[in-house]
């Protein structure tokens, strides 16, 4: 692998191997293949977004990488080790922002952070974590009384408490209001600035575009495309659609050379307007929908 040139090295350890390397990952549940030969590489120091509709295999992929789900086949290396057999020293180097609650609803936010600080040899100070996730004012509130968004922030604090080199974020902003989402995005940027590698799953296009250095689109249990957000679906984007009205109906011509189509069209109607004439190029959402194979559908 020779793809780490541009990646900043993490602060704790160096290393030229990618943070995550996956080859031919397969996993089925009850005979139904959820992952069907998935290949994935995440470079050290980058933020990689795994983008796909629900049921595409994002969470299963993340769980295999976290070492909490067995795989049927394929090679997996996370920070140079196989998650299925790696020990506690490896686990200390990864952080997970999970959906589960803390240690118990009856503990306060501060008590929860103080408690889990004892599970790691390199804890970030509780005060620093509270400030980083904006929970200072809720420090003495019991976890059971937090709002959904505040719980997510606590989950983030717990995920980064041990100063991990690689952080997994599985649909981190689902259920957050727009303000909380933006605060969360800033948190991820801060993590990145500290040299942490981030692998996040999302079904929000704007989130992937906002945060990720590279986006991998997952569909049918495989990665169908990997590219920086702006270049995603480059081939699809080259294709424009020329549309106009003719004989009481719509005509639409997909083409990579819209100017040529327009010239022919204008030549064919020298005297008048071409009614309803538009030339459109697909936006990110159109590209995404084509990639995941639900043309015209809504991302679920």
């Amino acid at each position, binding site marked *: 692998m020779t793809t780490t040139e541009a990646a900043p090295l993490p602060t704790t350890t160096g290393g030229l191997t990618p943070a995550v390397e996956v080859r031919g990952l397969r996993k089925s*549940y009850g005979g139904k293949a959820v992952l069907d030969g998935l290949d994935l590489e995440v470079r050290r120091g980058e933020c990689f977004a795994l983008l796909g509709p629900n049921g595409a295999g994002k969470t299963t992929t993340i769980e295999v990488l976290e070492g909490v789900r067995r795989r049927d086949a394929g090679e997996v290396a996370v920070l140079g080790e196989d998650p299925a057999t790696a020990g506690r020293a490896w686990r200390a180097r990864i952080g997970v922002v999970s959906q589960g609650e803390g240690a118990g609803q009856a503990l306060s936010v501060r008590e929860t952070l103080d408690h*889990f600080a004892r599970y790691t040899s390199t804890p970030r100070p509780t005060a620093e974590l509270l400030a980083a996730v904006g929970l200072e004012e809720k420090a003495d509130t019991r976890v059971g009384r937090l709002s959904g968004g505040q719980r997510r922030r606590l989950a983030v604090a717990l995920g980064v408490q041990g100063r991990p080199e690689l952080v997994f974020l599985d649909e981190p902003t689902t259920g957050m209001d727009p303000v909380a989402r933006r605060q969360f995005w800033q948190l991820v940027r801060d993590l990145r600035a500290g040299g942490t590698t981030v692998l996040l799953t999302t079904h929000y296009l704007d989130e992937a575009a906002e945060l990720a250095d590279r986006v991998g689109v997952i569909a049918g249990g495989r990665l169908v495309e990997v590219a920086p957000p702006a270049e995603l679906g480059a081939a699809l984007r080259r294709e424009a659609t020329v549309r106009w009205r003719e004989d009481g109906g719509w005509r639409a011509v997909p083409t990579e050379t819209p100017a040529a189509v327009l010239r022919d069209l204008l030549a064919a109607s020298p005297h008048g307007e071409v009614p309803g004439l538009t030339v459109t190029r697909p936006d990110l959402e159109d590209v995404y929908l084509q990639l995941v194979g639900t043309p015209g559908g809504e991302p679920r």
Partner: protein
Amino acid sequence: MTVLTTARPAPPSTAHIALARVGVELRLFARERQQVVFSFAYPVVMMVVFGSVLGGDVLPGGVPFPQYFLAGIAATGIMLTSFQAVGTAIADEREAGQLERLQLLGTPPAAYFAGKAGQVLVTTAAQLALLLPVARYGYDVPLPVDLGHWLTFLWVAALGALAGTVLGIAVSALPGSASSLTTSISAFAIVLQFFSGVFFAFPELPGWMQQVAAVFPLKWLTQGMRSAFLPEQAGAFEIAGGWEHGRTALVLVAWVIIGVMVCVRTFRWRRADG
């Protein structure tokens, strides 16, 4: 592995995390008002109810019913704070995703088990400290007569609590939702109480019940408690004609050791694994 982790000190030891677990388990227990009241009031209420209704009865060997029953209720109280409380709590914690977090942090299962055991020992001690004075001053039940009997009481209580904890961890691995598991655990505990001679004189139970009960720790825990509370000559009325301290210790220790080995293999951090 050391090559990759030179920048990072080794993770905290199992013992260090176990201590943290004991602390947090006790704190959570104390804040769960319903559980506190239930765990501490149940044996006392049972003592009051049975002592008041059957206080005048005398069992074989001339032992007044409240004296015989204190041994049973102490044992059943221990089962409540160990087996029932632990089995139920683990099922709930798993369902709430708390165990998932522990798994992701690389918590050694032994540290988690030790946290449960520590919490059980403390809450059991508190429960018994409340029950014994009620029996002594409310129903004239003599407490263990000398240091030897007190020591018997202590080792039987401690081993019983540990065996109950292990059994609680073991049943939490059974499939099903937390609420269905809680129901099963309660049903099992009730049946086991009857089989183990908590409410009746054990020798009067049918032989097959006695044999089933002998497999589980509660029968031995109850018998051990009788040996601490009843007069020496009452031992002659046990099935074996004596208190069987050796066998009691053996069965309880075996439950703890074999149970821990089983639990380490069957314990699940998550509801289902694919």
